[in-house]
């Protein structure tokens, strides 16, 4: 390699300058797209959040007005409370249930692969279609769920009509969609636990649930934290399946932050500045959670 370059010494200056450019040329298309369609819009969104616009063309500088409005506007507060309730319900149920499934799958020998695959299936399906499927199933009079419940004597539950139930329905469908994703991550974590530890613990007299509680769950903590964080990020970003499941209704009862941003940008009344401010806040929430994820990952690597 070295000798080859030396042999061509006379042209070396030009060649090596060109050679130094080559990696940048390979990076160019990808980075250009990132710059144009992610980095620039992110900076620009921050900028727009200090302006007000009701048509997308004329912008008026309002300083921190949008942010002040967000923290006092009733509709926004309603969206924030919906989002908080959804994220909390979704994260807690996802974590508890995916740990339970992962523990069961890990202990299972008969049919393990097929169980794992099927539980994973909804992760791959179109969220829009998942929303449509469950809107059909949860329909008050024509849905399969109430028909099933009728067998055990439960009356027609207005799942998607009464705001008492809607948020639960939305959380359930979110869970149905993603629980397999978290289960696969937790299974990988479980398989990483040293088998000898179980042997040692069982020699010390730990069995069954006791073994799970004192050995497995503590050792699974790092993976569980990753799942908590991924679920939180996902929860904050939820939009597509809710769009076809409830459309954010009834009367805004399941409108989450992303739909609010979308509506303020593309449906009348258009409020670009306000939506941008909401987006900036959403960004900082997701940003801090991701940093947390990174720090935890690093401290885990250090162990």
């Amino acid at each position, binding site marked *: *390699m070295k000798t*080859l370059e030396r042999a061509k010494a006379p042209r070396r200056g030009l060649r090596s300058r060109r*050679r*130094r450019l080559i*990696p*940048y040329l*390979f*990076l160019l*298309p*990808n*980075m250009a797209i*990132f710059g*144009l*369609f*992610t980095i*620039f819009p*992110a900076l*620009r969104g921050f900028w727009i959040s200090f302006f007000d616009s009701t048509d997308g063309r004329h912008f008026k500088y309002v300083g921190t007005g949008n942010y002040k409005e967000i923290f006092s506007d009733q509709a926004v507060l309603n969206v924030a409370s919906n989002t908080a309730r959804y994220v909390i319900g979704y994260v807690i149920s996802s974590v508890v249930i995916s740990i339970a499934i992962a523990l*069961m*799958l890990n*202990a*299972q*020998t*008969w049919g393990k692969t097929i*169980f794992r695959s*099927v*539980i*994973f299936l909804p*992760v*791959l*399906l*179109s969220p*829009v*279609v998942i929303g*449509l*499927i*469950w809107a*059909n199933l949860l329909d008050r*009079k*024509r849905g399969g769920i*109430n*028909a099933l419940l*009728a067998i055990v004597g439960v009356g027609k539950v207005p799942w998607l009509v009464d705001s008492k139930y809607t948020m639960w329905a939305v959380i359930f469908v979110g869970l*149905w969609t993603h629980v397999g994703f978290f289960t*696969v991550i937790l*299974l990988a974590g479980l398989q990483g636990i040293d088998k000898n530890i*179980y042997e040692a613990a069982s020699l010390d007299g730990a069995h069954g649930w006791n*073994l799970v509680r004192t050995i497995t769950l503590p050792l699974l903590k790092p993976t569980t934290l990753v799942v908590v964080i991924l679920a939180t990020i996902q929860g904050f970003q939820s939009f597509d399946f809710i*769009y*076809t499941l409830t*459309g954010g209704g009834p009367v805004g009862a399941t409108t989450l932050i*992303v739909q609010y*941003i979308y509506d303020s*940008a*593309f449906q009348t009344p258009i409020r670009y500045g306000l939506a*941008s401010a909401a987006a900036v806040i*959403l*960004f900082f929430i*997701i940003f801090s959670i*991701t940093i947390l994820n990174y720090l935890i990952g690093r401290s885990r690597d250090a162990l």
Partner: protein
Amino acid sequence: MKNIVASANKNKWSSMSGGKPPTTWAVLRTLILIWLVLIIVLPVIWIVLASFKDLPELGQKPPTLIPHAWHISNYSQALQTYGFATFLRNSIFVTASATLLTLIINSMAAFAFAKYNFRGREGLFIMTLAMLMIPLQVILIPIYQVITKLHMVNTFWGLIIPAAATPTGVFILRQYMLTIPDEIIESARIDGAGDFRIFLRIIIPLAKPALAVVTIFSIMWRWNDFLWPLIVAQDSKFYTLPVALAILNGELSVPYNLVLAMSVLSLLPVIIMFVFMQRQIAQGIAQTGLK
């Protein structure tokens, strides 16, 4: 049943509790898992069956499970008279071209990160991963302004190009390319091969397993994509299947039986891919923690 009991005995975990076969827990566990599988599978079967019903039957209270008559015409009618042939074609075209573009530009970037030393490499790589922190959801408005300025609204370019640069793809490919020995590249260089030729003739063939994973991911992402095409395709001529289903169903402008038929149609390719490649998919996700 015998099988379950037998395998439970082999299982160290549960057979520890006191020497005698702990059949109750093993059986209970298997039953719970079967029940879970039903919760996942039954809704999908339900919708497949429903997609063959006609409107009066869909409106029936209480609902039926098996259609009285199998209306295959739901599918043909949606494709022929409600424009779904166009939406399907758009979805296939966008998925295929965006995936191809993703493979090309992601593997080029991955090659640079994996096999070159250059100023700013670490910084640019961290920046690439940082793109994951800026989901589309938080830049909806400014990105719409950008594509408007570039006249990309209502174009296939707009549907394809911006989504093609994926941080996850670069990451997976770079990790894999790191394992390709430098000696192969250097000996090719001694033989007089240029950088692009090395990339095309040596790196790409060797990175095939990673390219396969990225292909599967990309097809899944683009086929199911909703928010991005929802913004770009303001004109129904450019709707992809998910956008068409969400919007036309919301407007009630397409009969519900046809919406269900097209929903099932849009699930089909992903389910087929899942059946044949579920192991790669699950492994890829477990390894990267992304989807």
